[in-house]
């Protein structure tokens, strides 16, 4: 095992796949010489050269279009969109073109490509550089969507995304880039569409994604310590495909489901999960499904505001304490 930061694990995942397969190419703004604005691609240019690691202008449509055209003609591109908020600038390419090309062409076009992007709050960047927008992608048929919460997962899921024959959007979390975690030595390839049970409990099931995962774990420890409430914690990891088997099973065991979502309230991934659980394991539930989300507001910039907008450990603990009795 090696201790890697999340950002080092991103670079390691890309490098592992570029080393293995010459058809893997990488493009984005500031990704080459500068190693990415989040320093998540440091060393790739030096290792693989400017033919495979390409800086682009600030032209998100051109970046995603280039990835699409390259993918349909034999390459496996990885495109970086610096902040996930900027997906809106090239949403036509993603939602109208990439997601639909295979279907509309009757299966003639394959798009084995990856879009990596830095998602989420915690950096005091304000409303246009802090959003959690994974539900935008989740709502479009034809896109696979993952959002890893730790170093090993980001390397393994990134590798799985590169090898997948379909377009995958990897939402990296900018508040996690500096976090450290153990990453197995050697080749690491994870599986899309798999959730992970991180903690087993008896009373409540906390389901979280990306940066909300460490908070859910911390809240679970606190609930155990202070309230003798025993919590299961599940990391969703993959929104499309969604591992409903694990999520339904873990909800059924405790009879109480809490979703912990960084996105604003309406149409977050937890709403879909709640509807699945309500429909398919309603009689296993011992109480209402509770969604803990960001209020339905744009994100404020000031630390005192941002910290109290996205779900905190305190809010998770307090909500579970108040509602699980």
């Amino acid at each position, binding site marked *: 095992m090696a201790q890697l930061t999340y950002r080092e694990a991103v670079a390691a995942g890309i490098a592992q796949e570029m080393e293995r397969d010459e058809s893997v190419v990488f493009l984005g703004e500031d990704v080459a010489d500068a190693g990415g604005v989040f320093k998540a691609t440091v060393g790739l240019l030096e290792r693989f050269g400017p033919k495979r690691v390409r800086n682009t202008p600030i032209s998100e449509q051109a970046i995603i279009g280039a990835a699409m*055209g390259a993918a349909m003609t034999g390459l496996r*591109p990885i495109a970086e969109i610096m902040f996930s908020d900027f997906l809106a600038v090239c949403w036509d390419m993603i939602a109208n073109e990439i997601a639909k090309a295979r279907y509309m062409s009757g299966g003639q076009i394959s798009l084995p490509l990856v879009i990596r992007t830095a998602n989420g709050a915690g950096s005091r960047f304000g409303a246009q550089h802090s959003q959690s927008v994974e539900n935008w992608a989740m709502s479009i048929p034809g896109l696979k969507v993952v959002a890893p919460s730790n170093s090993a997962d980001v390397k393994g899921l990134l590798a799985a995304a590169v090898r997948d*024959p379909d377009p995958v959007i990897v939402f990296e979390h900018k508040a996690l880039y500096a976090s450290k975690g153990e990453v197995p030595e050697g080749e690491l390839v994870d599986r899309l569409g798999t959730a992970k049970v991180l903690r087993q409990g008896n009373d409540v099931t906390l389901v979280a994604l990306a940066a909300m995962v460490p908070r859910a774990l911390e809240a679970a420890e606190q609930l155990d310590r202070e309230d003798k409430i025993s919590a299961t914690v599940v990391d969703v990891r993959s929104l499309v*495909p969604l591992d409903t088997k694990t999520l339904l099973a873990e909800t059924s065991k405790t009879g109480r489901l809490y979703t912990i979502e960084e996105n604003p309230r309406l149409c977050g991934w937890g709403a879909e999960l709640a509807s699945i659980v309500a429909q398919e394991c309603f009689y296993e539930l011992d109480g209402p499904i509770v969604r803990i989300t960001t209020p339905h507001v744009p994100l404020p910039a000031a630390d005192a505001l941002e910290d109290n907008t996205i779900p905190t450990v305190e809010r998770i603990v307090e909500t579970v304490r108040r509602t699980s009795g």
Partner: protein
Amino acid sequence: MTTRSTIASEAARPTEDIDERTRLSLYRLLLEIRSVEKRAYDLFLQNLVKGTSHLSLGQEAVAAGFAAAMRSDDYTFCTYRGHAHTLARGAPMVGVLGELLGRQCGLMQGKGGSMHLTSVAHGAMGSYAIVGAHLPVANGAAWSAQYRGTDQVSVCFFGDGTTNIGAFHEALNLAAVWKLPVLFVCENNLYMEYTPIGTVTAVQHPAADRAQAYGLKPINIDGNDADAVYRVAREWIGHARAGRGPALIEAKTYRTSGHSRADPAKYRPPGELEEWLARDPLALYRSRLIGLGFEEGTLRSIEGAVQRAVDEATEAAKASPPAPPALIEKDVWADGGSAWRN
């Protein structure tokens, strides 16, 4: 019309640079496109083709001239007005008509429809119905060819209206910076949907006048003259294939039908349509061939063969079963299915 002088000089040019076989295949392509599209229109009137359709009647010379100059492994990217380009690359008529009719024999088995004709086997890499979207995608195919070292060329067709959308400018800049083997071909048919392009564009030639902003040469051609198109296509495809970078070509032409099925085109000034019909690319090319000494009988036999082919394709498409409901949940993913959960 400045194009008249172009025609005059065209006729006076030495003609040996285009061989007889190419000329006959150009004529055949023009005929095939015209005949299939006229048939598509008839099928609309019979209410057999549903939805919308954007015909290239009057614009056929651009598709024919470029396709004749392309190699079979080159890539075509076109717009929702894409029947002509898809047919020109050799996609079967029955597949095109079948797609318009929503039949199982359609190129995409009815999954795409008129605006999304695709035939990857023929290098027709898709028809894109969001204005401007396919220019960046054409870059990607060109980048891939450059990376793989295959000397394939990507040719991207679009209308004059596209020159005012952001993706056009993003794509042109990246193509120039990366020196990609891609040709951007503007079919300037004078109208952005229902609006004269000149009233919404800052420059006279919507594509060519933008070329210098990307370090490219302004190239204006007569889009109704298949020979003129073919010559320019041959030259610039060769240029791109040799690794000398992209080109932006503006072909002036005219669609003699409306923007789409729904458009009676009442916005045309009096006399304009008639003036362009007098320069119809098919009639023009036929008289050119006769002038060059081609036998009337040779041309008639091509015309007969094309008409028979269109009739046969129409009957075959009509006989094909409707797209089956089982296709609805097919081909979202590479595994052939659409599952989003386990």
